[in-house]
C-alpha cells in the first residue's frame, strides 16, 4: 500500500526531531556530540546535560504526544465524531481535577503521589462517562453528550478549588496549562509501562475500529461484538490519555488535531492512522516542548500554548487545501 511510506517518514522525523531536541538548549550540541554523549561517554558536561536533563524530558514529551494522539484516534472512532478527544470524554478533566484537589485539599501530600492520583481521576471520569451513556448499550451520541456534561462539571469543580485555595495555586495552575518543567526519569519510569501497554493495545484494536466506524448495524452484521469493542476502545483511550495527563497536566488540542493530520495524510484506515498519529504526536510534542523551553529562555512558555499556535494553522491549511 502507498501509505506505508508515511509511517517510515514519520519514524525518521521522530528520530531527527528527538536528536535535535536533546541538542538544543542554553548549551548547543552538534548531532555527533549528542550521539557520543548518549552512547559513548558516561561523564562530562555534555553527558550530564543530555542524559540527566534533556533526554528524559524528550522521551516523556514523545510518549505523552503519542498517547494523546492515539487516544484521540480511538475516541474519534468510538464516537464517530471528528471533534472527539480525551478532553471531550471527561478523561483529561478528571485527571486535572484529581491533581488539583490533591494539591489544594491535602497540601502536605508527597508530590510523588500526584501522577497516580491524576491517573486515577482520569480513569474514574472516563468510567463515569461510559456509565452515564449506558442504556442497553452506549450510542455514540449519548457518549459525546455525557462526556461534554461531565467535563463541564469537572471544570467547574476545578475552578472552585483554585479560587478558594490560597497556598499552592501556582502549582495547581501548572496542571491546567500542561508542560514538562522539572520532569525527569522518575516520571518516565512511571509512565512508560502504561504507554507501552496502551499503544500496543491500540495497534491491535485498529482493525476493530475500522469495522466499528461503519455503524453498529453493519459492524454487527460483519460479526463484530460492538459493545465489548467500544468498551475496550474507551478503556484503552482512558489508559493512554489518563497516564499522559498524570505526568504533563492538560495539553489540550493535541488529541483532537493530530489524528486529523494523520488522517489527511494517510487516509481513514485506522491500521495506518493509529501508528502514524502516534509517531506524529510524539514528534510534534517533542518539537513543541523544545521550543517552549528555549524560545523565551530562561523562562518557559506552556507547551500547550505553543502546540496550539503551531498546530491549529497547520490543520486549517490541510482542511482548506483538500477542498
Amino acid at each position: 500500500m502507498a501509505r506505508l511510506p508515511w509511517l517510515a517518514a514519520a519514524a525518521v522525523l521522530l528520530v531527527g526531531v528527538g536528536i535535535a531536541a536533546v541538542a538544543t538548549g542554553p548549551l548547543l550540541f552538534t548531532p555527533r556530540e549528542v550521539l557520543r554523549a548518549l552512547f559513548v561517554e558516561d561523564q562530562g558536561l555534555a553527558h550530564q546535560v543530555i542524559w540527566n536533563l534533556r533526554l528524559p524530558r524528550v522521551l516523556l514529551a514523545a510518549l505523552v504526544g503519542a498517547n494523546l494522539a492515539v487516544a484521540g484516534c480511538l475516541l474519534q472512532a468510538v464516537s464517530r465524531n471528528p471533534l472527539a478527544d480525551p478532553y471531550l470524554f471527561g478523561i483529561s478533566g478528571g485527571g486535572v481535577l484529581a491533581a488539583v484537589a490533591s494539591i489544594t485539599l491535602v497540601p502536605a501530600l508527597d508530590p510523588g503521589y500526584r501522577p497516580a492520583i491524576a491517573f486515577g481521576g482520569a480513569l474514574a471520569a472516563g468510567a463515569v462517562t461510559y456509565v452515564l451513556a449506558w442504556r442497553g448499550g452506549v450510542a455514540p451520541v449519548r457518549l459525546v453528550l455525557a462526556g461534554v456534561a461531565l467535563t463541564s462539571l469537572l471544570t467547574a469543580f476545578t475552578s472552585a478549588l483554585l479560587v478558594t485555595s490560597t497556598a499552592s495555586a501556582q502549582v495547581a495552575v501548572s496542571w491546567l496549562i500542561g508542560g514538562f518543567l522539572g520532569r525527569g526519569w522518575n516520571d518516565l519510569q512511571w509512565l512508560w509501562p502504561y504507554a507501552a501497554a496502551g499503544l500496543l493495545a491500540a495497534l491491535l484494536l485498529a482493525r476493530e475500529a475500522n469495522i466499528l466506524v461503519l455503524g453498529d448495524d453493519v459492524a454487527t452484521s460483519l460479526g463484530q461484538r460492538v459493545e465489548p469493542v467500544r468498551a475496550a476502545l474507551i478503556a484503552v483511550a482512558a489508559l493512554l490519555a489518563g497516564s499522559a495527563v498524570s505526568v504533563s497536566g492538560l495539553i489540550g488540542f493535541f488529541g483532537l488535531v493530530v489524528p486529523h493530520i494523520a488522517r489527511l495524510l494517510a487516509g481513514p484506515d485506522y491500521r495506518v492512522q493509529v501508528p502514524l498519529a502516534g509517531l506524529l504526536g510524539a514528534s510534534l510534542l517533542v518539537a513543541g516542548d523544545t521550543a517552549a523551553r528555549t524560545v523565551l529562555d530562561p523562562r518557559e512558555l506552556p507547551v500547550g500554548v505553543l502546540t496550539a499556535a503551531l498546530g491549529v494553522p497547520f490543520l486549517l491549511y490541510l482542511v482548506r487545501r483538500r477542498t
Partner: protein
Amino acid sequence: MLDARDLRLGYHGRVAVHGVELHVERGELVALVGPNGSGKSTLLKGVARVLRPQAGTVYLDGKALARFGSRELARRLALLPQSPVAPDDVTVADLVWRGRYPHLGFLGLARRPDREAVGWAVRATGLAPFLDRPVSSLSGGERQRVWIAMALAQQPDVLLLDEPTTFLDIGHQLEVLHLLRRLNREQGLTTVLSLQDLNHAARFATRVVVLQDGRIHCQGPPAEVLRPDVLRTVFKVEAAVVNLPGDPAPLIVPRRPCPPEVERSGGPP
C-alpha cells in the same frame, strides 16, 4: 434454509413484529413489502440477529442463530442496512476489504482465499474501474454497489438488504435490482430484501411477503399476492393491476387513496 418461528421483535418494550413465521428456501429472492412502520426493517434485523428477539427463534439450516458465534454467523449471513454511511475518504477497495472481517484471524492477515473473494465481489458488481476512488465521490447507485460488494466479500449464503433502492433514481434502482437478480440466479445467492416500490417487487422477486402492523398479511408469487384487494386493505390505495402482453410481472397502477372509513354513527340497524 432460513426459518423464523413465532418471532417477536421490538425496541425498549415496544413490539414491532408479532409472532412472525417466515421460511426462506435456498435460492429464493424474497421481497418484503408493506407500509411504513409495518415492521420490514425490524424483521430483517431480527432475522440477521442484529436485533435480539423478545420471543421466538430464527434457525439457519436447522441451527438456532443464538448458537452461532458472531463471526461464524457473519460468514453465513449478511445484512445491508438502509442507507449505510461510509467514513470520509474510504476508498472502494478499502470498504470491500472490510467485508472480509469475519474471515480473518486475530491479526487480520489476508490470505489467498480472501483476495479471491474480494476480487470476485468486485467483478460481480462491476466496480473494478473504481477501486481507488473514495466511496463519497461515487454516484448513489455506484455507492450501493460498493456496499453490496462488501456484503458479497463476506461470502454469505443468505443476503439480507433493507430497502437497497431508497434514494436512488429509477435507472440506479433497476441497476441494483438487476445485479441482485443476477447474483440470485447465477450464484444461487438466497436473498431477502425490503422494497417500497411494489412494481419492483412484482418484477424481481420470486416471492412477495406482505407485512401489515408487524404481521404477515399474505405471501406468495407476485401475481397471486399483489391484487387490488390486498393493496386496498394493506396500503389503503385503490389500484388497478394490469398484465402487459408478453410480460409475466403484473403492473400495479395506484390511482387514489382509499376514502377514510366512514364512522358508523347510531342509526337504524
